[in-house]
């Protein structure tokens, strides 16, 4: 596929950073859920 440069996102400066932020947030959620489960089981 021909990759065309896309304009940067309004936050995070680059798309790569924004994607990383979404995935890190997922990891953070999993961690919080794990702690939540441990705390209340």
């Amino acid at each position, binding site marked *: 596929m021909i990759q065309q440069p896309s304009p940067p996102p309004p936050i995070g400066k680059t798309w790569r950073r924004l994607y990383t932020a979404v995935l890190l*947030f997922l990891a953070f959620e999993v961690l919080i859920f794990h702690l939540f*489960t441990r705390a209340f*089981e």
Partner: protein
Amino acid sequence: MRTADWVVLIGTLLSIVAYGVWKGRRQKRLEQYLLADRQLQWYTVALSVMATQASAITFLSTPGQAYSDGMRFVQFYLGLPIAMVILSVTAVPIYHRLKVFTAYEYLEHRFDVRTRTLTALLFLIQRGLGTAMTLYAPALIVSLVLGWNIHLTTLAIGALVIVYTTSGGTKAVSWTHMHQLLISLAGMGIALIVAIRSLPPQVGLIDAVRVAGRMDRMNVIDFNFDLSTPYNFWSGLFGGLMVALAYFGTDQSQVQRYLTGETVAQSRLGLLFNGIVKVPMQFFILFVGAMVFVFYQFVAPPLSFNPVQSAKVRSSAYAAEFQSLEQTHESTFAAKRIAATNLVAAMDANDTETVERTTERLQALQAQDEETRKAASALIRKNDPKADASDTDYVFLTFIIQNLPVGLVGVLLASIFCAAMSATASGLNSLASTSVVDIWKRHLSKEQSDHEYVVVSKWATIFWGGFCVAFALYANQLGSLIVAVNRVGSFFYGTMLAIFLVAFYVKRVGGTAMLWGALVAELAVVYCAFYTDMAWLWWNVVGCGVGVGAALLFQMVLPAREITATSE
């Protein structure tokens, strides 16, 4: 329902319809009508994507799921944020660059018209039946609990949706989605506050969470790899990723939502916002269900939450048996309430020994009560073999009707109807788009003016609205076939995902090989469905795997495909 509830319910729904009609007025061009002129900002795209996925069943059944099985269902959504990133990288820029109206239009650029038409037809079958179920399922639950006429309920929801979806097209659908989702979430917030405030004075929020945890309802994450359990971290991450990729990447009801973004960036931001917010939103809805569970540790729940089936058994030959179970249930509940009260007191006093002892007692009573409820379900099924013996879907609505103050019942019902309308509107909108763009305009009438295509699109919306309402009205008589209809999406999702995966990532496979690969994949799914015991979620994996593999094999024996500029 009191007058105030009716006023709130009808007022909210009519306001939504009027707003949709007003917002979508003066639609003259096809791009305007089907894609809101590709002018929407990321927040509209995001909320529209979320409202499309969140049907009334999400708000009715998910709390019931937490009530009966705890919060582990949230893990099903763990693959979704990853899917949002993958689609933002791959699908969104391709769809935008080619300025397609539907996802299937891209398949003609990449393969050929046959693959496009086949995929569009698969979509029309599964989404047509799926949208009918989106109408039928909440109408059934609401009419059973409230004693309403199911036909009138179905007709009312269907007619309201058809009015603004036909009149205002995608713009009306997307803008009403924003308000519908906010109303639905506000309704859940109200239910949560009422559930917590209705607990005994000595039971606070933290106490309630701790009681739910002791009763195994705070089991959010389970890292154990076990193929036999439907919801754990691994099945959520990998299975959830597959389902989310198929749903958001190949289903026009979702693709159409982010095709309305003004730029690639707006569409991407809409999807990424969904990736961030969806998991906490599901957690919140499940948490409401867990709090309703705690509420019913202190307030007596019915033996079965399905009032119609309970009434049927009470007037049947099994009445005495059912009454005996009700008495057992009541005495177990009385013991449970004492144990739960003691548990809260022990936890507040940091009395570890009593906490452990009382927890064991409460868990034993809960297990005993679940056995009683199972026996009641068995009686219900014995009395009426076609009956839905599971009452999970009725838990939350029963809680609303019996415990919310006047006025707020109307708000909650409005929030459930808003969710039903939002998912149905997306369905009708996408069915009309695919029918007109991929079938009518492509095969049947290529030379009409833009305005004429808008008129055809409006008639297509009315046609699909009529089809869904008619099917939903008839669904009541389908009995066990309904289960099959509910699973119809899994008949086609795997194959559709295979087609798009090959389109995006395997350049050397051409249209003919893909078409044969898709047919083999469908045969494999049909074989699994009718000749094996395989759980239906796995049909998606089989369809996708066989589709990709067969397409690659067919390409090896067919002449090498010609790579054109548009197919890149």
